[in-house]
């Protein structure tokens, strides 16, 4: 038997490997087109005082986490515990985008569960959500001190994905290292 006879078998095996790798990927987690690009525009009234606004200028020159959440989002409740711990550790300021929610419910949630956010912008009509490419809360963006998006987490943050995906990037941002 010549080697040529095995070509179809090899091709089939290669296809099986390719497709089984594809099956492992979670199709609900889409890669963000913003990675490595400047953070999208942010300009929202703050939850605490709607006469004030939160904009990109608020976190210019800083490494920050931008977290998209809503009170109707079940897994945001799970994530909230981790965000509180993260805020306590003072690793990084957390800015919130309260997506498609009402002020009353958002305030109630923070009162009951605690507030890990440095500042929260209210995106009641989902306009900012679209600008940030948000399609399902919770989503979190790591913004570097140069204003670029370093990483995006779709789904709740926890100790594991924080240490794996965020910590190395944050450390690489620190000045003098």
């Amino acid at each position, binding site marked *: 038997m010549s080697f040529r006879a095995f070509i179809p078998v090899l091709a089939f095996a290669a296809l099986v490997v390719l497709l089984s790798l594809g099956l492992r990927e979670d*199709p*609900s987690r*889409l*890669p*963000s*087109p913003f990675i490595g690009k400047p953070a*999208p525009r942010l300009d929202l009234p703050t939850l605490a005082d709607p006469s004030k606004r939160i904009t990109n200028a608020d976190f210019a020159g800083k490494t920050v986490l931008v977290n998209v959440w809503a009170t109707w989002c079940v897994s945001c409740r799970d994530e909230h515990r981790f965000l509180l711990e993260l805020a306590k550790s003072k690793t990084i300021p957390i800015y919130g985008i309260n997506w*498609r929610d009402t002020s009353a419910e958002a305030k109630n949630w923070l009162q009951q569960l605690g507030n890990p956010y440095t500042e929260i912008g209210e995106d009641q*009509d*989902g*306009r900012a*959500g*679209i*600008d*940030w*490419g948000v*399609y*399902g809360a919770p989503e979190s963006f790591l913004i570097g001190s140069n204003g670029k998006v370093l990483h995006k987490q779709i789904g709740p943050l926890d100790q594991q994905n924080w240490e794996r995906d965020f910590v190395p990037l944050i450390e690489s941002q620190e000045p003098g290292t």
Partner: protein
Amino acid sequence: MRRALVIAAVLLLTGTARAIDTGLEFDDPKLQARYEHIIDQVRCLKCQNTTIRDSNAFLAADLRREIRRMIEEGKTDDEIYDFLVERYGEFALYKPRARGKTLVLWLAPGILLLGGAVILVGVLRRRMALPIDGDDGEREGRS
């Protein structure tokens, strides 16, 4: 009777299709047609296998509203698709555009077809080069 049933069924179906998109229609039927064409091309990212026309997820409603706004502002179809791809990636479009990374999707069938043709011609040429009475010759040689 049968015709009446068919008409009733069709009307029922269109009724539900209309109900999802509760926005106002454009006064200009041309703009309305463009709008309807675009919302058939855009994936609802939340419920990935439906278009934003067919989805009642609020993300789909938000995207329809933005597309309506952009059409009113006089944006071209390409500008609207760019807006979506910039934010959600090429995956947002059901029919990927032939540029950049997605070019390979459009060219691959042609390349495969061409490759197949080249192999086929190669095999046929080799066969034609064989003596037609090759089998007989072999048998004769053996005996």
